[in-house]
């Protein structure tokens, strides 16, 4: 994310310090060991409103947890332009494809308002997950939960429940 502004290097482990893992959803809830080891490779990133920081089809370089702000996941439809299919709020994961082969972004991601992310570099995170079973066991369920919830929500959207009538009873 070339234009994203890094606000700090590795996050601190002091929960009272601004920018600590205490303010980062998901990570803050992990057991102390995995939390510490993930925090060591986590960076805080601020994204300006309107900025697209992940592009559909590209290799996903970063997995992030939204700390503040709102992010739109978008698909490009040639006839319709960019279509927002989901917005994400604090606590949501963006860029889960960073750790799931083939590591390509399934959507683009754009900040709708000034947004703060807690980010992990893809290769670094994958290396930890491959070697640190305790981190993997603590962190992967949260990622899976995110992906599962998104699949379920997408199915409901697919039903287009609010669409107008197809039939004509009256």
């Amino acid at each position: 994310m070339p234009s994203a502004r890094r606000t700090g290097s590795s996050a601190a482990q002091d929960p009272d310090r601004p920018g600590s893992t205490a303010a980062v959803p998901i990570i803050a809830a992990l057991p102390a060991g995995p939390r510490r080891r993930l925090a060591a490779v986590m960076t805080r990133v601020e994204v300006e409103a309107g900025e697209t920081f992940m592009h559909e089809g590209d290799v996903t370089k970063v997995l992030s947890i939204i700390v503040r702000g709102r992010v739109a996941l978008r698909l490009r439809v040639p006839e319709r332009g960019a279509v927002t299919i989901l917005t994400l709020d604090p606590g949501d994961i963006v860029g889960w494809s960073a750790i799931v082969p083939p590591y390509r972004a399934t959507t683009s991601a754009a900040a709708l308002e000034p947004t703060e992310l807690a980010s992990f570099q893809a290769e670094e995170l994958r290396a930890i997950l491959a070697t640190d079973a305790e981190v993997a066991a603590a962190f992967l369920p949260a990622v899976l939960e995110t992906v599962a919830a998104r699949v379920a929500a997408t199915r409901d959207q697919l039903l287009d429940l609010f669409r107008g009538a197809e039939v004509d009873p009256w």
Partner: protein
Amino acid sequence: MVSGSSMLESAAPRFLPRERFDDLLAALAAGGRRVVGPTIADGAIVFDDISTSTALPTGWTLETSPGRARLERLPDGPGQDRSFQYTVSGEGIKRFTFPSRVDALTMETAEDGTVRVLVEAPPAPDALAIVGARACDLAALAVHDRVLVAGPAVDPDYAARRRDLLIVAVECGLASSTCFCASMGTGPEVTTGADLVLNELDDGFVVRATTAAGEGVLAAIGGLVAADADRTEVAAAQTSAARAAMGTTAVPANPRDLLLANLDHPRWDAVAERCIACANCTLVCPTCFCTGLEVKSGFDAAASSATRAWDSCFTEGFAQIAGGSFRPRHRDRYRQWLTHKFATWWDQFGTSGCIGCGRCVAWCPVGIDVRAELGAIAETAIPTVDSGPIPGLAPEPPASPEPSAETSIDPLAFSPATVVSVTPETADTTTLRLATDDARILAGRPGQFVMVGVPAFAIPPISISRFHPDGIELTIRAAGAATSFLTRLRRGATLGLRGPLGRGWPVADAAGRDVVIVAGGIGLAPLRPVIDAVLAERDRYHDVRIYLGARTPRDRLFVDEIDALAARDDVLVRVTVDRAGPEWLGRVGIVTQLFKTVRGTGADATAFICGPERMMSATADVLGDLGVPRQHLWLTLERHMECGVGLCGHCQLGTRFVCKDGPVFSLAELGDDLRREGL
């Protein structure tokens, strides 16, 4: 009325020689009374006008078995000249008390442009005598009395036809293989509902009068002597033989609990393989009462007339609403019919809906036998649990603190209303502000609805989306011909309103609690009066949170109002849409995703939810996970409705009529029925 002693005396059975049967018909016809009885037409026994005994099916019987009904000659010998030696006719007496088509109302536009909806006056009581009704027919009549005149709403046409009905019953002296009245407790003995009861013998009839009117008929015939003991014994023996032939165990014990515990039994799929959904069973059933309104008009649409016609839960359109059908499969429709007859009828009316006549068995073209279906389910049933008293027999206090509003509503009375302003909301949705001086409508409650009549169109139920001191608002989505027409009305147009109908939102349930309002799409319209009511007395409630979903940003309703609400600091408003272009900076996703960003919703909250049923179900799940109690989760259901007062039968959901028992229900009340497919 006769005195007690003379009643006893006159109650003694008399003997009516066969050659004097015409005297009975003449006595019945005295004073211009119309007399109908069994006769043969088109190879079947039907009820029609008869003036002499020559019209009766003398010498014939009707052989019935599953999928078969054939006229057969009585064998030579004693009894070959009997006239009632069959059991049930193909069609019962229903078409005389509850005809398949009756004029219901007219709608017309007057010269000054005002619309009037005129309810047809019930027919003048047609003095009618029916000869040859059986015990099952009378039991069916009693069921119809309960459904159609015992309230809360009354069918005026049925009430009028029923008022002056004279019935000469015939007690069955034989049973067909399709008969099972003895198992249903309705026959073969005639114990109630008739004025005269006949037992046919070879040479005549043992006849007993059971009412003063019946006694009057016997007196008019004159010269009848008491039936001797031999004859009364033969008569009783015939009836006993009929009872013995049927047995009393044709259906499993307590079919209600059996069926309600087995709504997912594989037998429903098995029977659906054979059922062709032809609706014959509902047409011959003497207790089926579902009807629809058929509207006809000229091309100018200035006036129209509506006919109330029999409908059937086996038809495709019966459970249709704008979003689709609630019972798309034959399995769903057969289950609805059988469970209604044997189970939920008890909850609704305190009686069985099946009276054991077996017509549905004989007249089913593929020979489906309800007794066999019930037996098959019983054989491999999920054991029934004690489900407690049947609500219809032991009424429970209403779960809602709001009283039900259906009492004293004339089911068909419309009042005029005038469009005073029109506000387009979205491409397909419009809000009409209507002026009315109908005090009942003005006193309506959030969540109630009205039936809306304009000439030439069907009469849709529409939720009230706001109350004013001098009128109401209706927010209408153009989903079909009628609603499309309504959304195109202009200022000054008039229409007919009937209501307010249904049980509304129990806003009082939220007093002193957090209020959570969740709406999807047009579902915001019936919740708008809840928002109005809560804000009018904001201090009575703790946190107020409103979550709204729409298809796209352009499909949001009441945008300015919602923006104004969002600007308040005492209400939390969250909006999401299912899809959006890049210009939309708000949320995108299903409405349940909104809850994850908000803390504090839980056991102290009362939730009001309206939207597509799947969205409500998902919302109820999430709110339930957050700790909102089921009895404080309220949602409103949409079902096909033709009457709005529990008479047309379309809106049934299990034990309930959505129109009068709802449309607002708590999740605790609905239980598993909310997500049971095809119910």
